[in-house]
């Protein structure tokens, strides 16, 4: 987080917006205690870079930091961070919101959630396609 802060700062920035996505302890009505993120990393990096480009084309942003962790994470751990610095707070809020929404739509990362007993929680997206 310190590195994120250092990277996003800019002397001309009047506003820095930071979103942190954390692992929560419930999903689809079940208790979970950890999850695993897998990814197609080369394509994920390209998609993240495209999101940064899109942000810069829409808002006057100084620095943008977009990070998503992969591998096994426990409840409460940080999964994703989007941070944006801009002259004013409106652009920072909007760009930061756009970044996390875009990551959730297009970056090839998948989560698998585990119950304390070791069962896998099936998400609603999978329910939809299986029925």
């Amino acid at each position, binding site marked *: 987080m310190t590195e994120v802060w250092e990277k996003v700062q800019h002397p001309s920035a009047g506003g820095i917006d930071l979103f942190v*996505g954390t692992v929560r302890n419930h999903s689809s009505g079940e208790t979970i205690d950890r999850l695993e*993120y*897998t*990814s*197609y990393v*080369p*394509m*994920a990096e*390209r998609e993240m870079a495209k999101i940064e480009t899109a942000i810069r084309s829409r808002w006057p942003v100084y620095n943008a930091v977009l990070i*998503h962790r992969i591998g096994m994470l426990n409840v409460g751990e940080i*999964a*994703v961070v989007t941070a944006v610095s801009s002259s004013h707070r409106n652009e920072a809020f909007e760009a930061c919101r756009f970044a*996390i929404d875009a*990551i*959730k*739509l*297009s*970056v*090839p*990362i*998948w*989560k698998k959630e585990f119950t304390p007993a070791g069962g896998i929680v099936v*998400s609603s*997206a*999978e329910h*939809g*396609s*299986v029925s």
Partner: protein
Amino acid sequence: MTDIVVKLFGPVRDIVGEEEFHFKVSPDETAATVFEALCARYPDLSRWRPVVRLAVNLEYVQFNHHVSGGDEVCIIPPVSGG
């Protein structure tokens, strides 16, 4: 060269039980025909057709995107990052 690599990810990788295949493509091969060939081998995959996206060489493509030898085709189920 007529070979392509097909990669599976996330839940579709789990269902099929494999991460990677090698296919020989025909001249009028598309991303869709590659996916359908995989479904013929693994029928459980067909029910994902309404929700998967396909990518060729690290870029999302339409289903009718032409595929040539040397390409890498990825079957991308609904993403769940963030």
